[in-house]
């Protein structure tokens, strides 16, 4: 069965067609998403800059509103460190936990019901 390359099997099954069309569409889908997000960001950034300008912020003039390289590097480093040590020490910390309220799907605000005052 697998002794030799049979290009006929590709042709008979529209292999080339599926490959080309398929790959193009994958690109198209992500390109669409890229274009949309990029443009959406422009609008958003424009608004943001306008807001800052209205408030008289200097940052409005800065070319990009991104986070600084140093900060970013530090974060990346920290992240990397965590990646590396992840397996060894599962750090133990005192957790500060968010108190979660119960809820009910017949109405999601059934907060008070669980711990009703008893006296």
């Amino acid at each position, binding site marked *: 069965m697998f002794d030799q390359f049979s290009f006929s099997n590709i042709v008979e099954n*529209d292999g080339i*067609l*599926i490959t*080309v*069309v398929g790959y193009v*569409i994958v690109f198209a889908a992500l390109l669409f998403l890229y274009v949309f997000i990029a443009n959406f960001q422009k609008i958003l950034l424009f608004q943001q800059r306008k807001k800052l300008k209205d408030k008289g912020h200097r940052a409005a003039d800065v070319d990009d509103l991104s986070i600084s390289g140093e900060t970013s590097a530090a974060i990346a480093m920290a992240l990397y460190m965590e990646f590396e040590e992840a397996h060894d020490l599962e750090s133990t910390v005192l957790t500060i936990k968010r108190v979660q309220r*119960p*809820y*009910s*799907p*017949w*109405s*999601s*605000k*059934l*907060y*008070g*019901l*669980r*711990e*009703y*005052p*008893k*006296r």
Partner: protein
Amino acid sequence: MGGIDQFIHFTGFANMTWGHLIMLAVGLFFIFLAIKKNYEPLLLVPIGFGILLGNIPFMENVGLQIGIYEDGSVLNYLYFGVLKGIYPPLIFLGIGAMTDFSALISNPKLMLLGAAAQVGIFLTFLVALALGFTVDQSAAIGIIGGADGPTAIFLSSKLAPELLGAIAIAAYSYMALVPVIQPPIIKLLTSEEERKIKMKPPRAVTKLEKMLFPIVGLLLTTFISPGALPLLGMLFFGNLLKESGVTKRLADTASKPLIDIVTILLGLTVGASTQATTFLTSESILIFVLGAVSFMIATAGGVLFAKFMNLFLKEGDKLNPMIGAAGVSAVPDSARVVHSMGLKEDPSNYLLMHAMAPNVSGVIGSAVAAGILMGFLLKVL
């Protein structure tokens, strides 16, 4: 270029209709309401996103296994739990495991208000019948007035699965809109004097009473209406897990991961069941209208019955008739609405705990009503 043609043929763009666009807009609106207005986000986000999923246009009936109504699709498998009425009882299990019935136990006569408000179910049933719906469909539509999502889904799945999507969406929509629907009706039916009535503080409830309540509740209600067993059985079971004191671990699981998983699956598939090609009909619109009517009648029924009870209660024991409105259930939104209105009239009048009693009994009431309707209509004799 036949391949590209063929491909384009299958895209959402090629299969899109106005119906899809309308439903996508509805889905986005639900998500918007949930995030921006914080209306029932735990339900409206899944339902809203489900509406999106259900209305991505695709070529139907060619075996792609995408749509919720196509055999073999994931959504179809997950929808099974809705269609067979499995998810609602599991949600009631979780609800039971997180509900405190103390308010009701301490003042059990308020239980009658939860019964009175079910008039919305039955009158809407009659109206739907008169409008030409079948008797099974009419019952399923009427239950919207019960203001309980799981109960509405359960009954529709048994009596009128073809309307399930519309009924479920209507029920949850109006539950989210309780703060808009109820206040004008309450005001209309009560005098300022009545709205200022202060009620005696509720009595403390013992552990034993809380433990016995789910057992007694199960036996009494299901002996009278066995059809309510799937819903009330699970509700009271969950409550016993909570109140027994010895099964905390099970109550925790029922009220957290279990109910969450079921809520995710139920919300998503109920939303997706609104596929434009089957959902956008004049029937669906009529169901929405009837649902609103049902909620209003239920509210009025609760308030008026509270006034009726007052005729027999001596001075000092009288009810603030507004709490009757909480009998529709829609827990705890309608109780909060009543509480807010009470505070507006008299900043020292705290009605919340009083309103919780008819509120939770409204849940029992509508489940009993669903059981009775199933008893009358489901039998194959």
